[in-house]
């Protein structure tokens, strides 16, 4: 009896273990934690618009099809829409109307969180045995994830105060202290300085990772909402981040009216 019970328990545990193996990918380890090192990039249209959107012209007819908006499906869990309060929705509409000059991306400002993770530029996760650095190609922006004792946000910043922790296979980053100046996409969607973003990064295969960001901002939204998308690892030989210092490309836009003799 006793022997039988032990055997069946063993079988049961084995089956559970096998199930877990097939259902969830177990990432390689670095200092005992999932190793997220690599160059990652989203392959979607979230940077144009987080919500379902058809193709549309861009803000400048002069750039023709180059500046137009590719169609895309929503990355919002449950399909959206973004649960704006009425006055916040009005602000989004005003943002959209002035997007050519007012989108922080056009000005080459740091993209903020979560937008930095789904811009059409790669980023590198540098996971050390202690802290984790996210290095973004766009505007040389970066953020250090504190994996030690959580720190309270000091001054508000573009890239936020980032406190990380491991939950099994998942890196969870709690982001506060955002300055409320960043947008979420070229559609004028935005967060305020009251925003709290909880990000989850989970490797799902050798070359893919799931990314979700839970967005909480009671000053703008009637409820918490979540975006979710896969990230893909750059597998090309000798992949590396290059330098995209876009400040130079934004100076005419920002300061052209102060040029001697006026704008070009």
């Amino acid at each position: 009896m006793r022997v039988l019970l032990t055997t069946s328990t063993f079988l049961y545990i084995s089956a559970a273990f096998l199930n877990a193996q097939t259902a969830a990918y177990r990432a390689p380890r670095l200092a005992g934690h999932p190793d997220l090192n690599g160059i990652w990039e989203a392959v979607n249209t979230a940077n144009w618009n987080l919500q379902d959107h058809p193709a549309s012209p861009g803000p400048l007819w002069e750039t023709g099809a180059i500046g137009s908006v590719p169609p895309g499906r929503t990355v919002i869990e449950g399909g959206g829409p973004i649960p704006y309060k009425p006055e916040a929705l009005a602000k989004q509409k005003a943002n959209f109307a002035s997007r050519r000059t007012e989108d922080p991306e056009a000005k080459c400002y740091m993209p903020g969180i979560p937008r930095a993770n789904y811009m059409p530029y790669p980023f590198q996760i540098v996971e050390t045995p202690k802290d984790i650095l996210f290095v973004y190609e766009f505007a040389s922006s970066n953020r250090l994830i504190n994996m030690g004792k959580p720190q309270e946000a000091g001054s508000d910043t573009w890239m936020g105060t980032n406190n990380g922790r491991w939950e099994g296979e998942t890196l969870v980053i709690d982001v506060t202290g955002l300055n409320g100046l960043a947008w979420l996409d070229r559609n004028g969607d935005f967060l305020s300085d009251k925003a709290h973003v909880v990000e989850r990064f989970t490797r799902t295969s050798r070359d893919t990772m799931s990314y979700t960001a839970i967005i909480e901002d009671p000053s703008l939204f009637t409820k918490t909402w979540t975006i979710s998308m896969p990230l893909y690892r750059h597998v090309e030989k000798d992949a590396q981040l290059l330098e995209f210092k876009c400040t130079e490309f934004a100076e005419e836009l920002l300061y052209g009216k102060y040029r001697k003799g006026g704008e070009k």
Partner: protein
Amino acid sequence: MNYHKNLIAAGLLAAAALMAQTAKAPYTPPKTPWGDPDLQGVWPGNMGVPMQRPLNQGARATLTDEEFAKKQDQAKKQAQADSESTAASDSRVGIGPPSYWTERGKPTRQTSLIVDPPNGRLPELTPEAVKYRKEARGGKGLPGAWSGNADSWEDLNIYYRCISRGLLGSVIPVVYNNGNQILQAPGYVVFRNEMIHESRVIPLDGRPHVNPAIKMYMGDSRGHWDGSTLVVETTNFTDKDAIGSNGAGYPGDPGYHSDQLKVTERFTRTSPTHMDYRITVDDPKTWVKPWTILIELERNDDYQILEYACHEGNYAMTDILSGARDAEAAKKISK
């Protein structure tokens, strides 16, 4: 016979022990879990050593006791003055940062950042570089110190423009925000600079540089280990920044470099708290021979690197340019 042999052996051992004591035994840093020497930590730059050695110090690489005591005394007085004027401006013209921003650095005995050539001075410029500096931008010269000429942002240097400070401008100590941080992951070292938020990700796998057509302010870096020393070779530079504080090309700085610049950095930990950071500048289009600077870095675990949103907060650019246009308009009216 045996007795004599033993005596000689004992003598040799004693001599070896003495030598080990006098010649500083090299420090062996701890290892990362994957076996690389561990250089991680925050290593802020230390202000206070001039780039070039004053001529009267000749080939002397270190200060005398008397000179060092004088320097320490000056530092003490400066610290006292700083503490008494925390809210006041640090600059005679009233536009400098308040003194509580200022990082004065700890006095050291080093007489100049340049340690090679042995006289601590920059080598001669090539004739090509002399000509270029004179004729740049139709004779306007390179934008170094801003001298009031602000027809457009291009009259201001890359530091005013918040573009970058270049590789060397990002590490040569300046009066504030000298934070440098080293992070390591398998196959990579990252050298992070606080001001204008640079993160140079350096692969260690021996891959070739990217094509010379790809030019970058921070260049293209490749690293390898030479014992416990990290050696980083960087090429693929633009010719749009300068060597010196903030990559701006201020008068007195080494200044403009060409796109043929090759920078070789050597990071050597000399103790749990100190690191020798040696940088060799080789730009045959600009200087007749290579030169080397040494920056002694001291680890500071309490130094907090903050987000330096330079371009995002560049009100100065708008003010300088709009001020110049207003001044022109006022001149026209008074005529």
